[in-house]
């Protein structure tokens, strides 16, 4: 079949449109919308999802902080009140309290501290 001139048209063809729309007519619009919204109601609320995510993140951060402080206290190098801003930053960045102690200490690391961190 030789293509008709309309085959090249950059505009939508109303004849094709009408035929295809009828052929693909989905029907029962209200029923479809109701089914989608019913499935939405089954989903956990976005806020709950976010809260769970935030809770996990907060727990992980708290655990890392406690681990860092305990490590520091056991090593006898730092106390909670002496924790510097740099140590906090390194600990939060690396997730390791030991790394913060090593990287921000004014004195060379004690071998016992190094051993403790390796055991961790």
């Amino acid at each position, binding site marked *: 079949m030789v293509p*008709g001139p309309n085959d090249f048209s950059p505009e*939508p063809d109303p004849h*094709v449109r009408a035929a*295809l729309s009828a052929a693909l007519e*989905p029907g029962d*619009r209200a029923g*479809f919308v109701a089914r989608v919204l019913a*499935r939405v109601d089954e*989903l956990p609320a*976005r806020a709950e999802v976010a809260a769970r995510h935030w809770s996990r993140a907060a727990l992980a951060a708290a655990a890392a902080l406690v681990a860092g402080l305990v490590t520091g206290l056991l090593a006898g190098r730092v106390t909670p009140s002496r924790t510097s801003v740099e140590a906090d930053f390194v600990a939060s960045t690396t997730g390791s309290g030991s790394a913060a102690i090593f990287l921000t200490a004014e004195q060379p690391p004690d071998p016992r501290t190094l051993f403790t961190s390796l055991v961790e």
Partner: protein
Amino acid sequence: MSAPVAEGMSHGREDDVALVVRTLAGDRAAFGTLVQRYEEPVRRVARAVLHDVPDADDAAQDTFLTALMKLDHYDQKRPFRPWLLRMATNIAIDRRRRRVRRRTASLEPDAATLLPGPDVAAERAVLQERLREALYELPERYRIAIVLFDVEGFSHAEIAEILGAAVGTVRSAVFHARRHLRELLADWKE
């Protein structure tokens, strides 16, 4: 059937963005409005990909749920409809690929439905069935391209963006699909 809606008109981008913002704030009714507004094109695109109507509607439902879950990734500076229809296209294609082994003899045209009926309604139903069959004979990209172009009113460039294809490829797909369908329609009229 509602007419295709150009961006920036009554169903345009600004309204959509306001609904998206309200949906993100937890407004269920706003999301319901978005579903009502776009269920027709989403379902048509899904049907262009998937032969089975319930399967296509499941894909369309999945599209809206996925859109809801990913709504915070939607760039509010861009039109909503192409974003949604791209998602619908991908979800329907994924679903068809997963179901391809389950395709059965249902793909064969039902001989009973192809027999011309005694009245206009029956003839129209037969034509629609033949059109659907003709549509599903086309390559998937052709089907999606012609539905997005001739039914939904997207430009070649917009379809290219939705499908992740070159504009020339889309233009060619629309051309071939039109020729095929017009041939069928002309035969039917004779």
